[in-house]
């Protein structure tokens, strides 16, 4: 082994480890939310655009994406949205900048303000995409699927499954 190779061997292995740690962190964060989170069912209005980087996905918009509130929020602000569990859909109870105390039938979902129009806040939760195999994006376009999401105690969320007429959607 050359001198430079022996000098750089350790940093190179650290760099590989860093990259693997980033990927593992990204994956395990989602695994944590999916395994520890409580389940909530959300009502949607889907469309099917195409993402040049990630192929086809369903662009999901939720009932809880638009919230009427008298409080003035700015675009980009991180908010905590309190959801009340219903049958079957969850609905918004309140929205605030700080994480509020919850009752047993409530969940808190973290999101960001996408834009504000009059007294309506449009939220972005990171739940707005469901990836599907290329070319199969038109199938669920005619219907409104339900989305089952997992929400952990900190308000992080991940999509568990998409349901059509009460059954899991398989594409």
């Amino acid at each position, binding site marked *: *082994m*050359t001198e*430079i*190779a022996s000098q*750089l061997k350790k*940093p*190179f292995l*650290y*760099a*590989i480890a*860093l*990259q*693997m740690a*980033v*990927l593992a962190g*990204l*994956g395990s964060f*989602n*695994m944590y939310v*999916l395994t520890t989170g409580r389940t909530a069912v959300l009502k949607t209005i889907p469309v099917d655009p195409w*993402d*040049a*980087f*990630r*192929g*086809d996905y369903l662009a999901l918009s939720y009932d809880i994406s638009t919230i009427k509130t008298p409080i003035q929020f*700015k*675009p*980009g*602000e991180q908010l905590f949205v309190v959801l009340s569990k219903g049958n079957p859909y969850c609905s918004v109870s309140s929205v605030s900048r700080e994480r509020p105390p919850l009752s047993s039938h409530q969940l808190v979902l973290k999101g*960001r*303000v*996408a*834009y504000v129009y009059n007294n309506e806040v449009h939220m*972005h*939760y*990171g*739940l*707005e*995409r*469901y*990836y*599907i*195999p*290329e070319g199969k994006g038109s199938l669920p376009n005619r219907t409104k699927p339900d989305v089952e999401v997992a929400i952990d105690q900190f308000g992080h969320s*991940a*999509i568990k499954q998409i349901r059509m007429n009460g059954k899991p959607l398989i*594409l």
Partner: protein
Amino acid sequence: MRLKVPRTFPRLITMNASISRTFQRQLLIEINRWQEEKLIPTELASLLVARYPEPVTKSRLVTILLMLGSILMGLGALLFIGSNWEHLTKLVKVELIVSAILVTNLLAWRFRFLPGNSPRLGSGLFVTGNIFFGAAIWLISQIFNQDLSMSDGLMLWSIGAAGMALAVREAPLACLTAGLIAAYNLSSPFHIFDSSISADRQSLLQFALTFGLSVWFAYLLRSPWSTIITLVGGGIWISINASALGLLAYGVALFAIYLCHRLWWQPFALGYLYTGTIASLSALFSMTFSYGDYASVPSNGYWIALASLITLIFVGAKHRQFAPETLVAGLVMLGAWFCSAILNNSGAVIVGNLTLFAAMLSLIFAGLNRLRSATIVNITLVFFVIDIVARYFDTFFKMLDRSVFFVAGGLLLVVFGSYLEKTRRKLLDGMTV
């Protein structure tokens, strides 16, 4: 005895002898002839040959092909991820991409650093491996249906690429990292990539931090190209977020930094000069239109102008020999500020044109007589031509009949171009070497 060319000589001997291969060969023939004709002694001939060794040149074609191949492989991986291929399970997809990252990086290491291999192929494979890493970030977000924003993805990607670049000290990886940081800066607040969040999340401070980090990184890895990518990325960010005044201030600041920087690490310094000149002239040019945005300068523009002014004062005070340059740059900024803050639309257009004209004359003078840079003269002349064409369209498009407009315009360009080329050559020939 015929002289042979040594490939390497001590740095002190060869440091002032940067010559082309053709010139070196011609010179060797001449030296041999002088020696045969007994015009010079053998010792002197040997010294001259030693002074001008055969320049070691790398095949750029090979490097370009390898880099293109590496980037294409990486893009292929991105498209593969994009297809979300249904025949593979999630676990297999993750295993595939992780194996691709590991195998590519290990092969890159082998080719780059172990003896008997191809270092340039190794450099190319490092780039591929790090594009695979970027693809893996989006693959994992896709698997978990996570709506990872473009800016967050780019941030994670740049962290991984920066780590690898630092570890293996590779300039192409430094360039990739600089590009990723620039894209990250552009992606989050301006909806260029991510249209879902309209928030102006990224402050000027955040930009300054990542920009400074990127510049430091380029110096750490000795990569002039990485500096240029960072400076260009910064210019685009400022032009979007801080209006023409901000871009002008940025260009002036880069020019001032060049004045300090020009005596050390020249390849880095030239990036500041060229980027600064192009940024300044672009900003001034945009101020010559009646529909320019000089009337509404965001606070970012004024902050950048203030930082630029402080840089100018510092350079002017520390390097007195550049007092004229700093003074003119300051006056140009004053003219631009006058346009943006004081004047009404038509007044601003007149002052904008005058300021651009004064800046161009000053740059040509400085390029010829003080900085001795033909490139600066050429860049300025390009802007001069663009400005003439723009003014011609502004003034005569509505006044003249269309056919007359284009015939007259074409004729004007031919005559003006021919005159300009003669003048340019005369100017550059007269430049003191």
